């Protein structure tokens, strides 16, 4: 086998497809996840902790979800996850310190796969995730907004990141007259997508 640095590996090629960034010491979790999800909906990037930041930046504009199995992670990737609407799931290890509060710890592989597939299958107010990337809107249009994609996937749970990260999502909801809105909880400051009253969710 030739010695190929991580930067040269194909997994570091920038890609706009919905990405699950799997951070582990041996790659086993990425291989296992790939077998259990519909790969027309996402690509799984298999990275080691020291490659995580590069993998994050290669997932344009940011990964849809980060799945980790390590008890600690580099500060750089923790900061990136604290400032971008990224779903975070940890499996087989306690949540590393300093992750935003929307990160979830999942004790079993079955729980993890259930969580990923539930997020992929999320629906609200006629919206659902499109194949590849973005959100299919009730009027048949495709919204490529990673913010809206993240909000819809996590709903009804909320993101522990600033409202400013979700401006494009709010714009799309208004422009397409969608019966849902981006909501900031006044007590916690957390952000979620909610269906407006009278609309079937």
């Amino acid at each position, binding site marked *: 086998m030739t010695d*190929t640095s991580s930067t040269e*590996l*194909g*997994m570091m090629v920038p890609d706009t497809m919905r990405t699950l960034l799997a951070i582990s010491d041996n790659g086993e979790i990425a291989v296992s996840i*790939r077998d259990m999800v519909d790969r027309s909906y996402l690509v799984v990037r298999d990275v080691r902790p020291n490659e995580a930041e590069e993998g994050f930046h290669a997932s344009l504009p940011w990964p849809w979800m980060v799945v980790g199995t390590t008890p600690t992670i580099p500060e750089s990737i923790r900061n990136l996850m604290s400032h971008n609407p990224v779903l975070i799931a940890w499996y087989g290890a306690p949540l590393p310190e300093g992750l935003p509060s929307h990160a979830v710890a999942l004790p079993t592989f079955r729980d993890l796969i259930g969580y990923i597939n539930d997020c992929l299958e999320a629906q609200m107010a006629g919206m659902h995730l499109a194949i590849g990337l973005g959100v299919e809107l009730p009027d048949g249009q495709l919204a490529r907004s990673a913010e809206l994609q993240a909000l819809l996937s996590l709903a009804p749970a909320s993101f522990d990141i600033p409202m400013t990260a979700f401006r494009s999502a709010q714009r799309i909801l208004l422009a397409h007259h969608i019966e849902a809105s981006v909501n900031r909880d006044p007590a916690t400051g957390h952000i979620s997508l909610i269906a407006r009253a009278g609309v079937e969710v």
Partner: protein
Amino acid sequence: MRANPEVIILEDDPEKLEDLRQEFIRKRFHPLTARSASRAISLLKNNLESSRPILAVVDWDLSKAPDNISTTSDLLTFIAHELSDCLVIVYSANVDSFRVRSEIHRSHPRAWLHDKREGDASLIERIDRMLEQTVEDLKVKDGSVVIHTPTNDEHHHREAVRLVVHYPEIVTFHSDSATKAVRRFGDWLAKHDSRVTLISHGNRKYRLTVMQ
């Protein structure tokens, strides 16, 4: 204007390579063939301006290759970097091995795997399923022709096939002649009142969408 799609085939066994080559010629592809990863990379590098395969069929295990200058992993990495819209299928007798799967997907995260032990016919069936996409009233036949199903009219151009097999993703085209072919395909769709239309995202990026 006709332009047959290209396929790059890496297979170290000369007999099997010839069988695959004939199969793709029958499907009206233009096959580029190699028995070693280094030869496959050279073929692609030397023709990058004129030749952008829509499919790579890659044998992972190259024990009979005439040289071992490069590995299959090197080829997959090259394709991921330089031919990101090329569909990739990798076949191996060791596809159950965690190490092999991990290595393949770290080289090319979008590669599809196939078990060599299922035989050659199974590989061809799998490739057919990958390529024979249907989008509303459009269908790809044999991986090389787009058919408007209500009229049975055919559009023979590799860039049209590329767009349909990648639906609904955005595809970046790399030459003026390719973008001209894409726009001609858009006109052809409109002329046939297809429910599928061509959307331009600028910078030679296009995708197909279905009208509601």
